[in-house]
């Protein structure tokens, strides 16, 4: 059943001007303060890793813009509030969500502003599935990511292969929507159009604040409710919307909140942008008040000279004649910002410090038995843990400059006789560090000989120890970031204590990557990796400042679905950048000395 009243507040929100990456979880304290978080687009940590090994990235980053027409009207009094979701169809037939657009209010011919990024890989077939939903619940202030799709009305589905879109001359493909069974059916469900463009990874962003004066009144009993929509002209001649401001009610001289536009959105500073001012109507039929065509350079000039530019209204009667309106557009604020990328920080001397914790609980199986995940095969075949350490190690050795890794075990009974939930893997009483990945492997093998598997599986103590190390380092320097790798076979015994430890650590320069080996059901881990938007809450009422957990099941890596590099490094740049940006910590340039005492080892990039 459609909602009787659409979410008007939701429909009036600004879209696209926040310079935030869609992959970020719900707004949290850190992101709200910093005004920009998440990754910068394509995962440059992964690209960098491959490039230095001589493997050129065999893909380009593509940005998909969606629009639809003649959608089915599900709502009774008003029209549908559509949102589109793009899925990648994996080899086993399952669907992985790639991204979703925003919700547009009351519109059967929506042109969505939110773009979805996809890596276009030349050598494989990439089937895409598009779903359009009518959003039923109130979506004001709720990030689109948190909307539960099964609660929404399904409007239609379409599918195609990514190369079909990219190889067309105008890079656009229009598909008929059909119902889930694949038939077009008796009712016309409408069409969806997908447009693809290459993304430009750029760290330049522009913050602009707009204001208007003397706008025409389009409402009968009150004044216009204006908002601005900015579009970019694309090669094929059409235009693609990049953002819109919020709606200011009842005002012919509106002042909007500032927008942040990234170069990815506007292309280049000379690209002509179309700025359209509409009068908002809750029926979805917004009336055009006027439009202007300006590039970013032109807008900067308007700001410097403190003059306004007049809107024009294309006349319906004389197509070449445009009526110049009294309404003017002013640029009250214009500033350029640099959104530094993950690699900017790393190459300027920021260090990633990796720490490893290995699961020694009895659920792994007796190490002497061949079925055990800890079985050391005399023929030299690596067991699940050794494989995980080797594969993960290759990545972490690359980013950790000094190759000294704190290494612990948990859940085992050491020679002292009691079960420890954080013992040094190298068996030494004082120091917990090992040298290199081979050091981790050697310490692991020797620990297996001297430690008895016990239990239960508790992460709390290891996380607290890692948090203490991270916490102590911030007294001395702000250019170190810590990553704790927990390799485990599965089911957590005390979820509460682990959540508490994670919440306490969420404001520190620390990320926790949990690698799952074996065949257990890792559903719990997905609760910790708060990708569904639910922030972790401790038992004392404190809520995690940011999502610091990333979970990787080795089963999926070995199944060929994802590469270990991709899986491990997927969220790390985002978590790292959120921490740095909210505290306004910038990459160190040659002129600004590091706040830490001089490092005694050269940093190798």
């Amino acid at each position, binding site marked *: 059943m459609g909602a009787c009243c659409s979410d008007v*507040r939701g429909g009036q929100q600004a879209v696209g001007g926040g310079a935030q990456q869609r992959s970020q979880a719900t*707004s*949290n*304290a*850190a992101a*709200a*303060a910093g005004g920009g978080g998440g990754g910068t687009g394509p995962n440059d940590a992964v690209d960098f890793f491959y490039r230095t090994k001589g493997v050129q990235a065999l893909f380009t980053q593509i940005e998909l813009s969606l629009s639809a027409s003649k959608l089915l009207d599900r709502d009774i009094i008003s029209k549908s509030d559509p949102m589109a979701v793009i899925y990648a169809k994996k080899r086993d037939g399952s669907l992985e969500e790639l991204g979703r657009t925003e919700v547009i209010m009351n519109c059967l011919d929506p042109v969505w502003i939110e773009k979805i990024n996809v890596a276009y890989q030349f050598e494989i077939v990439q089937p895409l599935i598009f779903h359009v939903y009518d959003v039923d619940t109130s979506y*004001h*202030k709720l990030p689109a990511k948190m909307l539960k799709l099964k609660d929404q009305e399904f409007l239609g589905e379409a599918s195609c292969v990514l190369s079909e879109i990219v190889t067309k001359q105008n890079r656009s493909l229009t598909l008929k929507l059909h119902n889930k069974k694949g038939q077009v059916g008796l009712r016309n469900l409408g069409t969806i159009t997908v447009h693809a463009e290459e993304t430009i990874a750029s760290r330049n962003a522009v913050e602009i604040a707009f204001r208007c004066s003397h706008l025409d009144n389009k409402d009968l009993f009150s004044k216009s409710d204006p908002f601005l929509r900015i579009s970019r002209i694309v090669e094929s001649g059409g235009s693609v919307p990049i953002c819109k401001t919020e709606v200011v009610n009842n005002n012919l001289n509106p002042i909007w909140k500032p927008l942040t536009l990234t170069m990815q959105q506007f292309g280049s500073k000379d690209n002509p942008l179309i700025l359209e001012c509409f009068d908002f109507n809750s029926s979805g039929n917004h009336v055009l008040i006027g439009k202007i065509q300006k590039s970013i350079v032109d807008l900067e000039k308007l700001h410097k000279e403190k003059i306004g530019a007049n809107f024009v209204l294309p006349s319906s009667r004389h197509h070449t004649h445009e009526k110049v309106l009294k309404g003017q557009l002013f640029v009250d604020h214009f500033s350029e910002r640099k959104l530094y990328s993950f690699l900017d920080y790393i190459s300027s001397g920021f260090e990633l410090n990796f720490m490893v914790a290995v699961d020694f609980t009895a659920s792994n199986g007796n190490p002497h038995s061949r079925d055990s995940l800890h079985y050391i095969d005399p023929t030299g075949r690596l067991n699940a843990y050794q494989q995980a350490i080797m594969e993960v190690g290759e990545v972490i050795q690359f980013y950790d400059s*000094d190759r*000294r890794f704190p290494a612990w075990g948990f859940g085992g009974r050491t020679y002292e006789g009691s079960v420890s939930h954080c013992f040094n893997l190298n068996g030494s009483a*004082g*120091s917990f*560090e090992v040298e290199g990945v081979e050091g981790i492997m050697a310490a692991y093998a020797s620990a297996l000989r001297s430690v008895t598997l016990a239990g239960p599986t508790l992460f709390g103590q290891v996380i*607290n*120890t890692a948090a*203490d*190390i991270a*916490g*102590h*380092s*911030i*007294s*001395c320097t702000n250019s170190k970031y810590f990553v704790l790798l927990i390799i485990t076979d599965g089911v957590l015994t005390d979820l509460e204590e682990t959540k*508490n430890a994670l919440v*306490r650590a969420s*404001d520190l320069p620390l990320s926790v990557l949990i690698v799952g080996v074996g065949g257990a059901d890792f559903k719990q881990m997905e609760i910790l990796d708060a990708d569904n938007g639910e*922030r972790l*809450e401790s*038992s*004392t*009422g*404190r*809520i*995690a*400042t*940011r999502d610091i957990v990333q979970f990787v099941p080795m089963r999926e890596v070995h199944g060929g679905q994802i590469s270990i590099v991709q899986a491990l490094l997927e969220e790390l740049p985002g978590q790292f950048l959120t921490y740095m940006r*909210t*505290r306004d910590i910038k990459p160190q340039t040659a002129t600004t000395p590091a706040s*830490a*005492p*001089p490092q*005694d*080892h050269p940093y190798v990039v």
Partner: protein
Amino acid sequence: MATTSRALEVTIISGEGLRVDRRRPVKKNAFVVVRTNSQNSRSTKADFDGGSFPVWNEKLVVDMPAHTRFLTVEVRCKVNSGVKVVGTAKIPASDFVGGYFPPNYLHFLSYRLRDSGGERNGIINLSVRVKGTENVIGAATCAAAAASSSRPWVGGSTVVGKVSGGIVTGVPVWMA
């Protein structure tokens, strides 16, 4: 541990999912009162259009006398009949004072708000910075850190376990 009163710079950032009477989302005019005790309290301006997801981004400076155990953050909203308390969060001082954090460290914190009946009612996002005063760890420990190259810290931990509201006591032990 310093026994003098300190100044807390609290920036109230935003709130999420606020409701009145457990059912209706807050419409408007929510504001936040921050206090360390009955004499030291400050409040933000009301947010008039954020509804149940208000954004304040307002900095308040409130004194924290020695031995204060909690920072109380209360979200209230102006209704026709006066002012209603939407929810309260009691933040243990140990979450932002003492331990290994350097002086003037900016803590970003979020807490669950509970209404007068003890039911969950939204989330409050804020940042806290303790102004001035020395901290347990000073310059000497950083120098020691540099001397021991890549191992800045070895030894017992300070802030562990459930927080019962007391200020952290504990000094890291150095084994150079």
